[in-house]
């Protein structure tokens, strides 16, 4: 760093604006380009056999439960729920259609001494 220098670098420092008529190299924008391979490299399939990384071969598939525990528990829970639902359903229909119509309670028998008109039911 040249202290007090008034002139600007001809090459252009990154981040500084070039003034004047100096030749400015554009900074490459974007990602670097990789050219085609030059020379006589062997074609990949003829190249010596090498091991390619197999991505995530050891991770189990998402959602899959290899032990089957989750499935077994869910199956039991669903069967239990089904049983409960069936029982409730049976109770509902039987309670409404079975047992005959619900009528008012039978009136208490009239005392024999009671005069007509006083107790008719």
């Amino acid at each position, binding site marked *: 760093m040249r202290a007090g220098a008034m002139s600007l670098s001809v090459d252009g420092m990154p981040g500084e604006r070039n003034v004047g008529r100096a030749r400015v190299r554009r900074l490459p924008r974007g990602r670097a380009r990789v050219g085609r391979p030059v020379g006589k490299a062997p074609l990949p399939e003829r190249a010596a056999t090498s091991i390619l990384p197999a991505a995530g071969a050891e991770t189990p598939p*998402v*959602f899959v439960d*290899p032990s089957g525990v989750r499935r077994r528990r869910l199956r039991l829970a669903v069967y239990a729920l089904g049983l409960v639902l*069936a029982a409730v359903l049976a109770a*509902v229909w039987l309670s409404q259609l079975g*047992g005959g119509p619900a*009528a008012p309670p039978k009136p208490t028998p009239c005392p024999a001494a009671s005069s007509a008109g*006083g*107790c008719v039911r």
Partner: protein
Amino acid sequence: MTVYRSAPPPADPESSGALPVVRRRRRTFRALLVLVVLAVLATVVVVEVYTDAGFTPDGTTQQEASHGRVPAAVHDGGPVIDLSGPRPRSYRLPDRTVALTFDDGPDPKWTPPILDVLARHRVPATFFVVGSQVARNPELARRIVREGHELGAHTFTHPDLADLPRWRRDLENSQVQLAIAATTGRSTILTRPPYSSFPDALTDRDYPTVQELGRQGYVTVLDDVDSEDWRRPGADAIVRSATPRGDAGAIVLLHDAGGDRAQTVTALDRLIPQLQERGYRFTTVTGALGDRLGPANPPAAATQVWRGRTLVWTIRASDAVLWLFWALLIAAGALIVVRTLILFLFAWRHARRRRAPAWTWGSPVTEPVTIVVPAYNEEKTIGAAVRSLALSAHPGVEVLVVDDASTDRTAEAVEGLGLGNVRVVRVPPGGKATALNTGTALARNDIVVMVDADTVVDTDSVHRLVQPFADPAVGAVAGNVKVGNRRGLLGIWQHIEYVIGFNLDRRLYDTLGCIPTIPGALGAFRREAVRNAGGLAVDTLAEDTDLTIAIQRAGWRVVFEEDARAYTEAPATLPQLWRQRYRWSYGTMQALWKHRRALVERGPSGRFGRRGLPFITLFGVLLPLLAPLIDLMAVYGFFFLDRRLTLVGWLAIMIVQVLTAVLAFRLDRERLWPLWTLPLQQIVYRQLMYAVLLHSALTAVTGRRLRWQKMRRTGVALSRAG
């Protein structure tokens, strides 16, 4: 699109599910379970239809005038009829006595103010309640009893009893008794048949039902004075018609439900003091008759209370289920409307912007590309696919076919083409994701295009596909995939779906910066982006969706290039289509779940996760899962609710879909004729898609293993390959 898995996973030795006995037993259990669920739904429908039977709260419907079989003692007698004994008896109220009776309640809006008025004047009354209303407003029924009023039965759903068969009449009277028992712990000896009025209006048609009630132990309570408040003639008129003549005692008919009862409330507040001034005494029906009837509401038997509770709980549960369905339906409807609006707006803007003459991705991309074609037993189709790719109009195209241990002559078919820029690599069996990883690793160029082996492309597709890479932030590009084999309904339906799904939806996702899937049929990637994403993973069935999400989480942009077209072979039979969609929906769920951490992460991953994942989940998984409700409720509404309204609603959704489809076809410059199959699609294809989605959601929850089979090829799509 290729659906393949080169080798099925080995059978799970731990699972007993492979045993035929176990399988048979489970199938039986599953069928029973489905039956139980259907029975529950049927019960809900029956209960709702039964209890929501609408009625007109009018006083009388005189159809038959003859009353020859009604005994004179009843016809000319008082309004309280007791037919329980050997001789018919009827009673009038003593002079200057009024029993106010209220029919059709309890009603959550109008019963409380009526009870308030009665309490203010310290006047008891008799409420003839409708059982289904009691079940839905138990607290009101309890309040009526608590405040010293009497409860009478007015059937369960307010039908005209004389119209019903014997068993229905019994049910109506029994269930109102049960509803009262469950809510108040009381029973009732009083009943009033709906649409009844004065005793001399009883006809031969009504009389048997009254006799029946008597035999069961009920006292039938008709009325002397009809206030006609159901007509809403104004409070003055109600007061006038509710006032008994002279000093006669009267049972006065009023209503506390069945519409706006404000006039009744006002009239009541005036009628009571007026009559009290004239020396009238207010009482209940049994109170007016001394001890001749006994108590109106003796305690109910325990069995009746329990039967009643079952009834009340059933009604409440059915109401809750139906309410839930309606709520979900409204949510689904709102989502569909929002989605349609967003789609229209964004897709149209997207198309306009991309088609503007000034639009450019940047300077033309002419870098060489490697096209990776994974193949497993694609002998029939791969020749045409590879030829169309190798002849692409782009400088330096290299085609790399990765033969994933095919058992047919796939590799030979490619080699037989004799094209100079095509290489074939044979790899040990590993699945599509591994094959693509191998292809990416062996590619000589930094831009890798992945194409399925059953897909042909236009000459300029590859060139157009890589143009977005002029933008250094773009990491991957999705192509516009079309159905090649559009023969038959299935082909046309899939064509429609692809045009809407790929064109409209992907434009929207592109605008929002969250494309969920680069189709396996045509997509371009920077090798660096694939590397950043960790390559293709084998832990989901939708490796394309997984990779797309991973690339965006790594901070790259993914865009859609509509002009890069590819024609893929869509499944030609229903089972194949089922398997393909199963893989898509299940795989999408897997990918979303796998990347759920993106919701909470920082940096580009979190930015994508919070913007994209909820959106994709909402419109890609939840909305399609809710969609069947639209059809179910349409059927329910058509049969049990307002038929015209239901039809209009269903048609409105249909029109929205047609409009969406037309927009998608216009934007994609497709001919509109296949859209004639759209109405048909609503009743076959859509249901199939629901079933697939439901099935894959169940598989996801249970954690079952899947086996995959390869799609059978016909080679039809490739007739296009020029």
